[in-house]
């Protein structure tokens, strides 16, 4: 119990620190929202600076400490206010969230599954054809930045071959519905960003899974299994992989937390209107309320997943509870 309360306490302290950093960073960025509107939108008379400063409260010098406590209170109560475009921040985030969860969440799971599976097979037939080809290949790809892989795929499949769409989440002009054709359209648009994410992340899972597996395969109880004459798939899955996957599961829980934040580059590359793209525009628009809320969402996602992983470890491994 002491372990759990310590973890929860650490979670709260980290959350507070993150909130505070989140409060400070946007405020030290050069420029303000009014200048950002002038810099961003065409057709705005420079004389609008005065009106915009009033609108965004730029020259209203409030006590920073009071603003800080207001901000903490608003974060705790979920009042994020309006974006620079005058839309409720929550509405904006909720409308983009499904696209990011759908794209990055699903690909994270797929990458984990592929990585684990290839890692297990590779270790089992160490030095075999599969082991000689896939792990090194994917590990090399994993060292590329995700936007580079994305651009490469775009160049080949969208620009040169023209097989797949260039950008966006579905075709311009189609009305979102639950029809098969619309779902198909969404999937077609997700292919390239999804592949980029999978090839880049799968390599890391292969690497760690293969290593864990090799260590586990050297254990006595695996030899015991062989000696008993068990079928080889049963030894591979039930004896070796089941134990080897434990450290990876913790890593996976943490990786899920990064799903939201990790999407910025890929959504930018593919103009995919999810949270990552929203984060990019909020930064260039100097949209403080939106930026802060997104930071908060990212931080919370990571912290909650780490906490869950910690708690899960405590549940699975009795040794940690006394630590």
């Amino acid at each position, binding site marked *: 119990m002491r372990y759990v309360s310590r973890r929860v306490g650490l979670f709260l302290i980290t959350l507070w620190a993150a909130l505070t950093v989140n409060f400070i960073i946007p405020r030290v960025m*050069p420029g303000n929202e009014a200048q950002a509107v*002038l810099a961003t939108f065409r057709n705005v008379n420079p004389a609008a600076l005065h009106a915009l400063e009033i609108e965004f409260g730029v020259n209203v010098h409030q006590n920073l400490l009071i603003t800080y406590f207001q901000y903490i209170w608003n974060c705790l109560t979920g009042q994020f206010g309006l974006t620079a475009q005058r839309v409720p921040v929550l509405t904006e985030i909720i*409308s983009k969230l499904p696209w990011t969860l759908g794209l990055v969440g699903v690909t994270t799971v797929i990458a984990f599954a592929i990585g684990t599976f290839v890692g297990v097979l590779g270790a089992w037939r160490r030095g075999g054809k599969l082991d000689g080809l896939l792990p090194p290949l994917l590990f090399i790809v994993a060292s590329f930045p995700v936007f580079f892989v994305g651009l490469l795929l775009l160049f080949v499949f969208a620009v040169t071959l023209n097989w797949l769409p260039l950008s966006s989440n579905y075709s311009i002009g189609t009305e979102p519905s639950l029809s098969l054709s619309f779902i198909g359209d969404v999937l077609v648009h997700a292919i390239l960003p999804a592949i980029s994410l999978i090839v880049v992340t799968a390599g890391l899972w292969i690497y760690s899974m293969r290593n864990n597996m090799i260590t586990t395969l050297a254990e006595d109880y695996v030899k015991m299994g062989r000696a008993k004459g068990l079928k080889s798939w049963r030894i591979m899955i039930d004896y070796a992989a089941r134990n080897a996957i434990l450290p990876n599961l913790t890593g996976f829980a943490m990786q899920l937390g990064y799903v939201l934040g990790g999407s910025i580059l890929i959504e930018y590359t593919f*103009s995919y*209107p999810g949270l990552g793209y929203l984060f990019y525009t909020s930064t260039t628009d100097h949209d403080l309320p939106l930026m802060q809320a997104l930071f908060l969402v990212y931080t919370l996602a990571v912290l909650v997943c780490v906490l869950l992983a910690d708690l899960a470890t405590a549940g699975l491994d009795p040794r940690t509870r006394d630590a």
Partner: protein
Amino acid sequence: MVSTWRTNLRRFKPMTVLVVAGVLAAACGSATTANSGGTANTGKVGGKLLIDNESGSTWTCQFNPFNPSVNITSIGFIYEPLEFINILQTNPDGTPKVTPWLATASSWSSDFKTLTMTIRSGVKWSDGSPFSANDVLYTFNALKADPALDLNALWSVDSGPLTNVTLQGSDQVVFTFNAPAESYFYYVADQTPIVPQHIWSTQDQTKLDTYADTAPVGTGPYLMSNCSQDNIKYLRNTKYWQSKPGHPVPQVAEVDYPAFLSNTSANLYLAQGQAQWGAQYIPNIQSYYINKSPSTRHYWFPPTLNVSLFPNLNNPLLSNLAVRQAISMAIDRSQVSQRGESGYEPAANQTGIVLPTYKAWYEKSLDTTTYSPSKAESTLQAAGFTKGSDGIYANAQGQKLSFSIKTISGYTDWDASLQVITQELKAVGIEVTVQDEDSTPYTNDTQNGTFQLAYGEMPVAGPGPYYELRPLLFSGSIGSTNYERYRSTSTDALFNQYSGATPAQQLTIIHEISAVMAQDLPVIPVVEGVDWYQYDTTNFGGWPTPSNPYAQPPVWATPDNGMVLTQLYPVS
């Protein structure tokens, strides 16, 4: 190749593919034979027009015409101005062409301090309520009640000249100013959309800037029929006030405005022929767009604003006229136009008058624009600068002519232009290094004067060079648009006279200011920024063309877009 720079609707500049031989310097496509501009009404109604303009973010489905991040989707379509002023067309006396819109007439008092506008009768809001002078009165007073709406700083409380708006009789609105305000006519008549009192007055009058206006009721040619994050669908307003029996206005039945997040996707959509009205920067437009259907696809890039080098006049070296003269003479503007801007943006001149758009205001005898590296060097030498062993000139105190130029990152055509400029300045012994910045810090730095040289342009054009030159040179604009921090009481006086002057006097004033630009070189214009505009005549006619420039053609130019929408007609 794949970029998500917000290009066109927003002020972001495009990723430029470098100069391709064969791209014409001519800033226009082949002229269309379609007649347009108020004469051609075929009596037919139909068709679906698609607009193609990168927006950089998805639609918020708000239509508040005073919210600068969304008003390009409501002004012109739904909300209309009192009069339409065409900045691209002038009357023989040099005054801009004015078309009465929600007002039928307007007149100034002789001292230009009182403006009386007669409001059109018989106009109805799209919900059926009658439109009246009260709506006009309400709109202007709303700008006073919530200063955040006063985007053109009209009211005296927002440092403008407007002090009072009253009703005279039942159909006239009288604007009273505390100083001659002729130059404010553009902002009052053309740049202020009129909103319905019966709807807007029910909102919190001090927070109208946050009013979402998701179901807009306007007087305009279109009704917002459906809005999602990625598309706005407009249907024609069947009861539009310009419609007469046998003369339906507008004639295009449906207009769709998709949200394009990237320039690439917007360009592709246009090239595939799916959209008809483009406002896109397209590298290699001839092969990428025009050649796919040369008889129906056209482009026209009318110049409206100078892209200039801003010397910070607080800098002791740049405040030296000889240095600025040398910089101006060292730059071969046509080279910058060709190599930096693919010839799409023509070379500018030192008088600051954008040609051919404002040719009525241009006086050739004043123009000092010369390209002469040798004269640039002799000017520096005459001013006491000597060339060091590194080939860079320095003054007697040993201060080298070595400067940084701030520009906006992502504006790759500007980067290409600056590469040309850097080489040309280097050739005459002036060293410059380009410093790319994000647009918001760039705006912050240029406004606050933390730069040596800056490359950039004014945000918006108006009906005449005054609307660009005043923000550029008036000392009261230091801290906002007078980036270079030019101070001259005589120039300020010229600007102050302008708003109380007759058209002939205004022309003289602009000539005097041109002379200041040409002699003092407070700003060094390099090329002329243009409006990107493409159109396809396969399904629709009535487009603005170089021979019939009846409105500023890009769809983000409001309320010009409304003018274009009333002129387009379906062809079959």
